C-alpha cells in the first residue's frame, strides 16, 4: 500500500464522455488531472454499445468503444494521468479531499470532478438475479451471440432497448419487446427502425413480474398493466434495458442528492453543495443522458474546477 501521489489539483472520478471531456479541458488548462477510470467500467456505458449515430462529427457513425478510445487518447495526449482502478472511498468535505482507490492508495486533491455515470437498472425480481447469466442479461452486445435461433424478450422502451432489440435480431429468431405502456419514449428514428424489423414483435402494456426456470431461464410471467391479468410465455432469454440509476453510492450523506440519487448541481453549473466538488454526466442528468450532453457537462465541470482553483 503506497501513496501514488500525495497532493494534486484535480482528481476526476469515472470515465466516459463526461469524465474524458473534463480530463481534456483540465489537462489543457495545465491542471495535470488524475483520472480514476474504473477497473472494469473504464469508458463507461458506451463501451457496451455498437454504433453511435448521433455523436456530431461522425456522419458515418462510430463504434461506442472506438469513440471512447479516441476520447481517452485525447485526454492522455494533453497530460491526464489515467489510473485504471476504482475509487472506493471519498472524503469530500474540507479543503483537501481524500480519495482511496481499490488497491488501498490514497490521493489528496484540491478539487474533485465526479463523473461516475450510471449503472443498469434492475427490474427488482428475486429470480432476475438468480437467473442472471442463465438467460437473463443486461448486455445484448456481450450475450446476444448465445441466443442464436432462440426466442428472446427485451424489456424497455427507450433508445437503448430499441438498439439492443435490433442488435439481437442478428442472432435470435424472434425478439419480443415488452413495454409497460402503449407508446415508446425512444427517439422516432430508433422506434421506427425497431417497428419495421420483421423479427421484432411488440407486447404493449405489459410488465415482467417473474422470471421462470430452475437452472436456466425458460420463460416469463407477465402482467397486463391494463386489466391486471397474468400470463406465462416461453422465452430462452431476457434482456433488460429499462434505464439506469446514478452511481452515487459512495457519496450518499456527503453531497446533496435528489430523491432518485442524482447529484444536485447549482443552476447552470457543475458545482455541488461542497466547495471544490463538481459533478457531471449521467450522475447529474435525469433528463437528457446522451453522450454529447455528458461531454458538455464534463467540459463545464473542468472549467468550473479551473475557475475555482485559480481563485484558491
Amino acid at each position: 500500500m503506497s501513496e501514488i501521489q500525495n497532493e494534486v489539483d484535480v482528481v476526476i472520478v469515472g470515465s466516459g464522455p463526461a469524465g474524458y471531456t473534463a480530463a481534456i479541458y483540465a489537462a489543457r488548462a495545465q491542471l495535470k488531472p488524475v483520472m480514476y477510470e474504473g477497473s472494469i467500467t473504464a469508458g463507461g456505458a458506451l463501451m457496451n454499445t455498437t454504433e453511435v449515430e448521433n455523436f456530431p462529427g461522425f456522419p458515418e457513425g462510430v463504434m461506442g468503444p472506438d469513440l471512447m478510445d479516441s476520447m481517452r487518447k485525447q485526454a492522455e495526449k494533453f497530460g491526464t494521468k489515467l489510473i485504471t482502478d476504482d475509487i472506493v472511498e471519498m472524503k469530500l468535505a474540507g479543503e483537501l479531499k481524500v480519495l482511496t482507490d481499490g488497491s488501498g492508495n490514497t490521493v489528496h486533491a484540491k478539487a474533485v470532478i465526479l463523473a461516475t455515470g450510471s449503472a443498469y437498472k434492475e427490474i427488482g425480481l428475486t429470480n432476475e438475479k438468480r437467473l442472471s447469466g442463465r438467460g437473463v442479461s443486461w448486455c445484448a452486445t456481450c450475450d446476444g451471440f448465445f441466443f442464436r435461433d432462440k426466442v428472446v424478450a427485451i424489456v424497455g422502451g427507450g433508445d437503448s432497448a430499441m438498439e439492443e432489440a435490433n442488435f439481437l435480431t442478428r442472432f435470435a429468431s424472434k425478439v419480443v419487446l415488452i413495454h409497460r405502456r402503449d407508446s415508446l419514449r425512444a427517439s422516432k428514428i430508433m422506434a421506427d427502425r425497431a417497428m419495421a424489423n420483421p423479427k421484432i414483435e411488440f407486447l404493449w402494456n405489459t410488465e415482467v413480474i417473474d422470471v421462470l426456470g430452475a437452472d436456466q431461464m425458460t420463460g416469463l410471467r407477465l402482467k397486463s398493466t391494463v386489466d391486471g391479468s397474468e400470463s406465462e410465455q416461453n422465452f430462452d432469454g431476457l434482456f433488460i434495458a429499462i434505464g439506469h440509476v446514478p452511481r452515487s453510492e459512495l457519496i450518499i450523506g456527503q453531497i446533496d442528492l435528489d430523491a432518485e440519487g442524482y447529484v444536485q448541481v447549482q443552476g447552470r453549473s457543475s458545482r455541488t453543495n461542497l466547495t471544490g466538488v463538481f459533478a457531471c454526466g449521467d450522475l447529474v442528468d435525469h433528463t437528457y443522458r446522451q453522450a454529447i450532453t455528458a461531454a458538455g457537462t464534463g467540459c463545464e465541470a473542468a472549467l468550473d474546477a479551473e475557475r475555482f482553483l485559480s481563485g484558491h
Partner: protein
Amino acid sequence: MSAAQAVTVANFEAEVLQSTTPVLVDFWAEWCGPCRAVGPIVDEIATEHAGKIKVVKLNTDEEAAIAMKYGIMSIPTLNVFVGGQVVKTIVGAKPKPALLKELAEYL
C-alpha cells in the same frame, strides 16, 4: 501477452478437467467490452496466485461447443473447476477485490 493460457477443444480435457490444481476458466470473446475490462484483472490473478490456481481463457467465439456444454449464456463468466467439476460460477465483470473475495477458498 496474457499470463493465462488459451484453452481449446484440443486441450480442455488435459488442462482443465484433468488438472490436479483448481482451474479458473475465463469464458470471453473479443467483441465483449466487459470481458476486455476484466481480462487484465484475470491475468493479474494468474500471476499473483500461480501454483495455487491455474488460470486459462476460453474464447467462446472459437470454442462455442465447450461454452454451450457449460451453459454459458453471459460473458464474461468465470468458472472454477476442481476435479473436473464446476464448483463456482461468477457471472459478469467485477473489480479485483470482489473477485479475490469470491475466489478466496481456491487461492
